[in-house]
Structures are given as C-alpha cells and as structure tokens.
C-alpha cells in the first residue's frame, strides 16, 4: 500500500494497476445475491417462506407440466388419503382434488404477481415522489390518496368486477386491488419523510444528482425492508380478496380454475350440508393459508436482508479486519 511521494494531490491520481473486472463483478454478485440468500436461509422463517414460495412456483410450473387436467371420473366424492390414484380425494363430479389444486396454481400465481407488482409500483412511485418533493405536490397527492383510502375496497372492486367481468388473471389481480395502493403509498410517504431528513440526501442534492437518481439510489434502497413487507402484504391482499370473490361467485368463474373457484363449486353444490365434501372445500383453504403464511414469513425474514450489518457479515469478500471490527461494534 505504499504510495510515492511525488503525487501532487490525490485528485490527479489514476489507477496504478488494473482492477480485475471479474473480481469486481464477483464482489457485486457476492454482495447482492449470495449474501442476501444466505441471510434468508439462515433464518427459520426465511427458510419456511422461501421454501413455501418455491414450492408453489414449482406446482405452478413443473407440477402443471407433469400432470393432466383434472377430469370427471366415476369416483365421486372420494375422501382424501384413501386412494393412491386420488390422494386428496375427489369432488362431486369425481374430479381429482389434488389435480384441481395443482392446476389452479398458475392462475393464482399470475394473479398475485399482477396485483402485487401493480400495487407496489403505484405506491412506490406516488409515495416516494410525494414524500420527497413535499410541499404542494405532496399535499395534492395525499389529498387524493386520502380520498381513495376512505373508499372501502371490496364494494368498489365488486362494482368494477361486475361491470368489466375480467378473466385474465393479471387483470383480475389488478382490478381486485385497484385502490389498495393508496394506503401503501401513504405509509411509504411517511417513511420517505423520515428518510428525507437524513443529511446524505441533502448531500446528494448538493452534488447535483437528479431527483430520479436520488429516489432510486438513496431513498428507495432504504425503504426496501418496508417495501418488501408491503409487497408481501399486497400479495396476501390479492389472495384474500380474489379467493373471497371467486368463492362467492362475484367474479366470473366459468372456464377458470383457481382455489376460490374450487371453493365456490364445492359451496354451490351444497358442501356445507354434509361432511363428505369437507375436504373439497377445506383443502383449497389450507392452500390459501399456507401460501399467505409463507409470504408473511418471507416478508419478516426479508427485513434482515436489507440490514447492512447482517449483509456485511454474510459477504465473503469482506476482509477479516472489517469483519472483526463489525463484531466488536455490534
């Protein structure tokens, strides 16, 4: 680490040796992908969350590809765990419940992704912009947001669903959570308000960085734990609302297969009167709860990924010296 004395100021300094690009990228990869993953699975909640999500993704892709569409058979209302051919039993039309569940997953996943991505995008854009800009812009946007918050979501969604009758899963996801971003963006905004007071934001402004870049590089990364939790919550909201509405048959069910639709069929065919059909209506409910619980666990663990202290500890490219200091200070 010796430096020649001849250099006039450190300003003119240029590279003495080429830093290897591969090293550089390896480091980036290590910090941004490997370390977070390691943090996630080092936590039971994270492990469960990631595991559940991967499981459903597997069902929705490979699972669908491996299995046939559920068809009507003569085995009507088989109870679960009796027949190896129909491990989870069959419904009133003799269709296999397991297959129904598997073939519902792609629709569910697309819908969840559509709704959650839409919500978080709207919320992040409106929330961070209003919070960062402040003043009149903020006041204007927040007045609108407050109005939207005051409108109960479900009735509004029902009205829209009845009028537009959406069937595409992504569109359904969006329609179902159409106004929900408002609450989220308000929450994000107040987070931004507190992040905004940090002096490093002002320092970036002083350096003349453009607003978009400050939002992207300085503000949003600090909100990531919060955004992740809210992303997960938005996803859960999609699941809850959609399954509820499909269950009641408010959303058009014909030609669509998802957990809510299964419950709806079971319900409509009088599932509540007899114990024989219990599995038919309860199994999709279990899927709903499982996925939603997995998402919560994932969200809670994701909080840690964005903690620089943990990230520093899990990155291998960190030198020993820094790691020790870190240890001493925690």
């Amino acid at each position, binding site marked *: *680490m010796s*430096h020649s004395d001849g*250099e006039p*100021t*450190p*300003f003119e*300094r*240029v*590279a*003495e*040796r*080429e*830093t290897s*690009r591969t090293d*550089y990228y390896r480091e980036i990869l290590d910090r941004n992908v490997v370390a977070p993953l390691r943090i996630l699975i080092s936590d039971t909640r994270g492990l469960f969350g990631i595991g559940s999500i991967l499981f459903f993704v597997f069902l929705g892709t490979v699972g669908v590809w491996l299995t046939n569409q559920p068809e009507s058979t003569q085995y009507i209302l088989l109870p679960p765990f009796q027949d190896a051919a129909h491990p989870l039993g069959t419904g009133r039309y003799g269709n296999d419940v397991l297959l129904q569940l598997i073939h519902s997953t792609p629709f569910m996943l697309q819908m969840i992704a559509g709704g959650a991505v839409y919500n978080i995008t709207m919320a992040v854009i409106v929330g961070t912009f209003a919070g960062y800009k402040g*003043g*009149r812009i903020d*006041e204007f946007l927040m007045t609108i947001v407050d109005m939207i918050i005051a409108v109960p979501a479900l009735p509004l969604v029902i009205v829209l669903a009845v009028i537009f009758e959406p069937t595409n899963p992504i569109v359904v996801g969006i329609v179902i959570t159409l106004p929900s971003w408002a609450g989220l963006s308000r929450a994000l905004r107040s987070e931004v308000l507190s992040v905004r*007071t*940090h*002096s*490093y934001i*002002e*320092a*970036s*402004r*002083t*350096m*003349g*960085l453009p607003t978009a870049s400050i939002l992207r*590089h*300085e503000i949003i*990364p*600090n909100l990531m734990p919060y955004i992740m939790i809210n992303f997960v919550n938005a996803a859960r909201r999609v699941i809850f609302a959609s399954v509820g509405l499909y269950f009641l048959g408010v959303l058009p069910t014909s030609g669509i297969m998802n957990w809510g639709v299964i419950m709806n069929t079971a319900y409509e065919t009088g599932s509540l009167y007899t114990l024989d059909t219990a599995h038919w209506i309860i199994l999709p409910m279990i899927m709903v709860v499982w996925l939603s619980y997995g998402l919560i666990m994932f969200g809670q663990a994701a909080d840690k990924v*964005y903690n*620089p*202290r943990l*990230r*520093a500890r899990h990155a291998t*490219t*960190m*030198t020993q*010296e*820094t790691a020790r*200091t*870190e*240890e*001493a*200070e925690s």
Partner: protein
Amino acid sequence: MKERLHDKSNAQQTQDPIYQVRNVSVAFDMDRGTSRVLDDIDLDIERGEILGVVGESGSGKSMFADSLLNAVVSPGQLGGEVIYNTEDGQSVDVTELTDEELRKFRWQEASMVFQGAQDSFNPTRKIRTHFVETLDAHDADIEDGMDRARELLSDLYLEPDQVLNSYPHELSGGMKQRTLIALSMLLDPEVIVMDEPTAALDLLMQQSIVRLIREIKGKYDVTIIFITHDLPLLAELADRLAVMYAFEFVEIGLTDGILEEPSHPYTRALLNSTPNIFAPVEDMTAIEGSAPDPVNVPTGCSYHPRCPMATDACVESDPGYYETNANHGVKCHYWEDVDNAIPLQVTADETRQVDVPAYGPVAMGTDRTPVLTLDDAEVHFESSQGLFAEPDAVRAVDGISLDIYENEVIALIGESGCGKTTLGKTAIGLQRPTGGSVSFRGQDIWDAKDGHGDVEIPHEAIRQSLQIIHQDPGSAINPNRTVRHTLELPLKHYNDELDMGDRQARILGMLETVGMTPPEDYADRYPHQLSGGEKQRVTLIRALLMEPDLILADEAISALDVSLRVEMMDLMLDLQEIFDTAFLFISHDFSNARYITEKSGGRIGVMYLGEIVEIGTVDEIINNPKHPYTKSLVWATPDLDETGENEDVPLRKIDIPDARNPPSGCRFHTRCPEARETCARKKPVLVGDGGNTHEVSCFRDVPNHEYWDSPELMNDEPSDETPTEK
C-alpha cells in the same frame, strides 16, 4: 454503617458524606463476555456540594448516575454498596431497598435530570399533570406542591402558568430542560443527579442554566452531582471534580486543584484538547487512540495504551489511589512526573498576538471578487402551508449581505434557531431565497438554475462548486452503502472520463490522505463499521471529490467528542490548503469557531434572529466584541481559567423570542442588558469601520445617537407591541 479503610485517598475523606459509594460495579452479560461498564468505584459525596463528574462518552458516567438511584436498567447488574445518609444520621444502602422503599426514595430523597429533556415528558399530557401526578404519587399536598412548583419555575426564568398549561411539544428545548429541573426539585430532594443536563442545548442556554443551578442550589440547599463530558462547564460550577476514564475514576479532587495541577495524564490530555477561547490555538492537541471497550479493558492501568508515559509497570499493575495532597487523589503510578512529561498547555494569555496567515481577507484586501455574494438575501418560511392556514412566516434569514472570498474561512455563530443553517444553505444554493440574490462569481445561482438571462456559469458547474459537510456523521452517509460506493457517486457523475480503476485509485488515495489506512479495508466498510470521526472524514472526502470552491460545514464537528474536534478541524484546514476551497463554518460554539478562523485568518459572523449583528476578523470579535449579544456569547463560552467567578447572566431574558414574531426595532432588545427605549423603536444597521475587519449593528457603536439620551428599558416590558420605525 461500617467504617471502611480508606486505602484510596484522603480526597475522599469528607466531613458529612451524603453518599458513600463502595465497590460499585455494573456489569452486563453479553455474548462475547461480561461487559463492565462501571468498575469497582469508591467515592464519597459531601452533603451540600456540587460534584462534577467528567468523562468522554462511553466512559461509564451515566452508569454511575444510575447506580446512585439504583436505577440501572436491566439486564445490567449493580453490585457493591451505595450508602445514603439522611440528614438526621440514618444510613441506608440504596441497593437493598424494596421496590416500595425505592419508589419513595427516588424523587423524595434523590432525583435525577436526564440529558433527553426532549423525551422526558409524556407527549400526551400537559406539564401541569406531570407535576400533579408526581405530588400525588408521593402523597404530597397538591396545593403546597404546586406553589413550590411555581416558585421553582419562576426561579428558573420561566412563566409558571404558561409553562404549566403547555404540552411538552409547545416548549423549546431549553424550557423543557429547566422545567425538568423544576420537576426534579418538586419534592424537595436532598440530592439531584444531573446527567448531561445541558448537552443538547446552546452554549448561552447551557451557561444560563449552569448559573441558575448554582443559584437554586444556594436557595434550596441541595447536593448536586453534575455529570458531563464538558470539562469547561464544570470549571465554573463544581466544588469538586471526579474524572472518569474507562469505567472508573482516575482523578478526584477540588476543582481548582484539578484544573491547576492535574496529576493524571488523561486529565492533562483532556485539558489540552479542550478548545478554549483564550488559549493559543497552536497548543491544542488531540488525544491519540480511542477509549477502551467495556468487555476488554486493558490490564494494569487502563489508560496505558494511550498514555505517553506508560511503562511495563503500568501494563502489569493497576495503580491505586495516590494522594497528591489532602484533597486530591489520582490513579497513576507516575503522577509526580506528570508535570514534566505532559506540560499543561492551556494558559490564559489575553494579550497575545495572533499571527494572521497570509491569505486571510485582511492581508489580501477587499478589492478581489468574492467567490460567493449574498445580497440582501431573505428566506421566509411559511410555518404551515395548509390551504387555510394564516400565513405565519418564520424569518429565518432576513436581509443579509455577505461576501465570501477565495480560500476564506468564515465562521457563523449564533444560537439554534437564529437562521445560521438556513443562511448557509442559501449560500450554497440549496435553499432558494425568498428575496435578494445569491451569486457565484458574479453569476446569480437561481437565474442559472432557471435559465433566466445570460447564464455565464452553468448551473451544473455552480452546483459542483458549492458543497456541504453535515453535522451528524451518523446520517450523513447512506447506511446501506459501502464507503467505496458512496464516494464513487460524485466521481461518476462529474468525471465520466475516469474509468473504474481510476476512480478506485482516487478514492483510495483520498482515504489515505485523510488518514484512513489501509484504504482498501476502509473502502469496503459500511458506515456502521466506522467511528464518528471516520464518517466525518468520508463526508469531507465526498465534498472534496467534487473539487468545490466553497464548502459549507454545518456544525460539522459538533457531534464529535471534544478530543476529536481539534483533530478534525486541523484536517479540514490542511485539506483546504491542498484543495483551495473556502469554508463557511457554522457553529454554535465560539471556541471552535475561533479555532478554525484563527488558524486560517478568517472572519467570524454573529447571527441573531435572521440577521448578522456583528462580523469581523477573529481577533476583533474575540478581543473586542462590540455587540451586547456577541458579548453574551463570549461570556457563555466556557473558560477554564476564570473559575469561581459568579457573574450574573448578561441577558434580560434567557429564551429566544419567537422567530415568527420577532421583536420590533433592534431584535435583541428584549434580551439586551443595554437596551434603551430607542432600541425598541428603531432598527440599527450593520456599520463597518471602513475596512473589512469589523462591522456591528448596535446603536452603542454610534456616537451621539439618540440612544444615549433615551431611557433604559424596564424589564419585562411588553415592548413587542411598539411600532417599528425604519
């Protein structure tokens, strides 16, 4: 009470001790071992004295405070005996009290004032409720108690009824702190433990409160334990001093004794590193090294890693208390040699000559073009921007003109809320002025930004030339980024001709320049892996990488430990020479402002309620202050040598008036001790002495002004209503 052998020191032999602290330790069990944040302390506290406890942050001084009230927060474990002697001769061990006894003991016998007065009150309850419920909880008579409360509050220069009817958020920091002191004395306790009670306040407020504490102590006859990191503050307040280092007391003695003949190397280093308004600046030095970790206290004398006199004996054996005289004990093997080994550098010398460096404004004349010019700049904030709010403008900056020259260092001082930060931000183009103009080398900054008129210097270039270093190093760097990443940003943005390797080299070079070696290691750290001083250096580098012409240092060193401040200021000045920048240095602390301006031959400007009331060379301002406000700031600046003097507060009112409704005429007239009737009506203007060396805005500086014939203003006159004449 058992008589313990005083193998410690006679300094502890007191006549009538109210507290006898014996072998007290506080330990926390942690993953990596036991953390001893208080290590076997012995100390007697005399009834009726003011004991000053001084130590750096993390030295265990707050734990000492907590242990006196047996209020150590779990999982901390308090060991040893804390004997409390009542006036009628009974002794109790505070550590053995039952919960109910403890509840009674606290506040009735011993109460406590914290640093965080801001958060010491329940935000949802009125101040009055706090008083009443305290009386109620101790079965005291409410009416008598509230009478006492009123008396206490007015003794502390507060309006009792107004304060009692307020919610906590409606009071200023200084008011809350004084209210908390009043609350602590409500039940007439024998002892008050004050843990950094003034740390968050302005110097003027600090000094005023210290003064009031002395008065109150005389009037109500209490024992006070005053804990602080600020040695000069104690010089004028405490009867005895106890210096804390690494979780134990290393030196105890009478205040005069300690200040005149400090016998512990640490105490000496502390004194030498304290910025002081009248001591020669060249003599201030920082303490090397850092305070020990409570899990890993060095063996033997815990100061040995930092002590210049350390020998093998120091590493091997822990020194006991040596008595230097009957009233002075010290934990150092070699205290007798300390005089020669570590000379005391701070000596009062008010008539010394200052060597003004060659590039100061005085030396270079005033005919140059300034880097930055503020012309009658105004910033008025509307306090609530609601649709239906009455416009309530806070005049943060009200008509200020100022030139900043190449390589100049200007320090702006004033109490919080005086608008100095807003002025600074206006100067570097972060805050748009609501009136007047700000120009960079003759180019109006905001015209450049908006593209009005002929833009000679593009906004981009101006933006790059004006940079900032913030007060709180903790929030000045994005916690989610490594140092390297943080520093890359400005380089990427302004120097696209640099490739990645060059950027790295430059960053590493800068890190090395500011003494963060090995730079490769520091570059990869996240902010939480840096100390406060190191973070501050990173922000300094970040600003310098932009190659600016002017840097605003907004209280840039206030958050650092005293011993680090000098070092940081030296670094800033060194870098200033290398990089050719001017500094606008904002501070509430006269000593720091003086240090940095004197070393660079700069100027000091004094701000009050949005206006500059006095500005001039450092020499003029320090040695020949003309404005009564400047004088009061000088008065408030702690000064180690004038101990024991007990002048009155040179102000008629302690609290700053509301900036939304500034007083008429001279804004200072409500507090000015020299105010006369004219001051309430007419507004003085800033007049100079011809050169650029001293300007002041006060009628007293104008001979034959009608001021001299007008009657003095009576105290508490509601002069706010008097109409203004210009």
